[in-house]
């Protein structure tokens, strides 16, 4: 009896979040899916809505600017995520090996490392636009002192994307490091003691103790950072505005321009958003599958 009433209460606790996610998340997606088959144009509100089938998908998939923006989104998300997780792991190892027993230094450095992640993308974009600036920038000033020429980090289309990715890595590697540090600390000390007895090198420890024990956490951090990377509009639009040309334009920026800034082709943009949604879900499925497989193996 008691158990039953308890169950019912717990059901009521879970329900609101699920209902909200459905109403505010899934229904709009279905609405976007429906819109993608129509010819809605926000510039022409009087135009009658007409079902035009998969025309929008055909047009947008053949659009070179959309393809480029898709490529940019993937490059930004993947490079930024892998970079932040790897650098985060290196920083976590450094903290673990050298600062674990120095609480004051550890706290100070950890606090410093977390600040960029809590800083808004707009501030981060300003910080790095300033640093990269050809005239006022610290980086170009140092390069000048070393005898190098000025590098146009953000207006050279060959390196603009890499410059933006580096900013992203700078912002999130400390955050990743703290998450991974928690995982390192929770690895039983005996493993390391045994490794010491055998005389294992650092890379052997990394390969046989650290990576296997950290696998789940590494994937969780990877996933979390990947989700953060999908929201890149703020950083890139303030740093480069998608430029030079469309060298750093991501899907969000292009579709927004298409739907609101340009000719008001909301339906076509919706088709693009659905394509992006499918790509995102598929890539997350792959990551989650990897994650669960390793969880079963534990």
């Amino acid at each position: 009896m008691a158990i039953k009433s308890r169950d019912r209460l717990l059901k009521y606790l879970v329900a609101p979040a699920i209902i909200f996610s459905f109403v505010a998340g899934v229904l709009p997606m279905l609405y976007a899916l429906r819109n993608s088959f129509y010819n809605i144009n926000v510039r022409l509100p009087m135009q009658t809505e007409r079902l035009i089938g998969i025309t929008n998908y055909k047009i947008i998939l053949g659009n070179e600017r959309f393809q480029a923006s898709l490529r940019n989104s993937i490059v930004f998300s993947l490079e930024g995520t892998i970079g932040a997780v790897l650098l985060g792991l290196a920083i976590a190892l450094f903290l673990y090996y050298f600062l674990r027993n120095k609480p004051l230094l550890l706290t100070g450095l950890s606090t410093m490392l977390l600040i960029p992640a809590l800083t808004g993308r707009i501030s981060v974009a300003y910080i790095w636009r300033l640093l990269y600036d050809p005239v006022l920038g610290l980086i170009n000033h140092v390069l000048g002192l070393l005898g190098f020429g000025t590098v146009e980090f953000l207006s050279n289309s060959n390196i603009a994307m890499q410059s933006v990715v580096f900013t992203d890595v700078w912002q999130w590697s400390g955050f990743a490091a703290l998450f991974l540090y928690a995982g390192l600390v929770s690895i039983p000390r005996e493993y390391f003691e045994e490794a010491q007895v055998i005389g294992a090198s650092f890379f052997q420890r990394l390969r046989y103790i650290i990576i296997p024990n950290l696998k789940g956490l590494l994937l969780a951090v990877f996933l979390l950072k990947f989700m953060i990377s999908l929201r890149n509009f703020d950083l890139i639009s303030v740093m480069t505005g998608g430029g030079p040309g469309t060298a750093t334009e991501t899907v969000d920026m292009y579709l927004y321009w298409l739907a609101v800034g340009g000719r008001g082709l909301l339906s076509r943009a919706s088709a693009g958003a659905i394509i992006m949604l499918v790509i995102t879900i598929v890539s997350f499925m792959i990551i989650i599958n990897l994650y669960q497989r390793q969880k079963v193996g534990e």
Partner: protein
Amino acid sequence: MSKKQTSGIKWLRKKFSSLLVLLLGVGLFLFVFLPIFYIATMSIKSQSYVVSGEFSLIFFKPSFNAWINTFNNPRIWTGLSLSVRTATISTVIAVILGTMAAYGFSRYKFRGDDDFLFFILTQRMLPPIAIFLPYTLVWQYLDMIGKWYNLLIPYILISLPITTWLMHAYINNIPIELEESARVEGCSQLEVLWRIVLPNSLPGLLMTSMFNFALLWNEYMFALFFRNRTLPVEVGAGIRYVELTPWPTLSAQGVFLMVLPATFAFYLQKRIREQPITF
């Protein structure tokens, strides 16, 4: 003699490796610190100093014009009030919904519970543009474009996965025996939640709220698209100067924007380091 020599080399190696550690540590510190320091000093340089072509990291005559400009700008204050309002209300609602759900998922086994939990988390994976496009039609229809409360639903939507996930990881670590003994002593389920679970998850609640608040405080895209001039939108608008970028003023605004969430760093780093958070 030879013995002394090897110990000398050992001594040197030891010194060298501790020097290397020191260098790495300082390098890591500077890697994070220098960019922030640079924008902070830029905000107390005068525009004329900046355009004069002189360059110094520390030795310059400070000018607080940029900060005076920032504080005299009414748009910064309206942006601040809007940001505080939207971020606070959305965080409170998202944390309440998320904590309820997290507790339910943690203690209540039903068919497909993992799938439902995963379903809530997937909301975070939606590309933001896919949320924006349908919402903009609905808001237009309801005449809500530009109204401040049009941000609440998208904000709760993007917060809920994070609050649910963090609280779920946290509540899972509270031993269920505590609750069981309270039940034996005759507490009702609600009393257990109120008296046992909530007090025990207070650090987790604080962490989740801070993290989520920082996230929404910094949100830019929805605010811009739904025509709400929150603080990030006001600050971000400054970059559109074409001729001469007023870097000291922009820097002051950028620093102003980052101060509040940065104060959470000390508390959050401790929480994050304490226990690994997985799914």
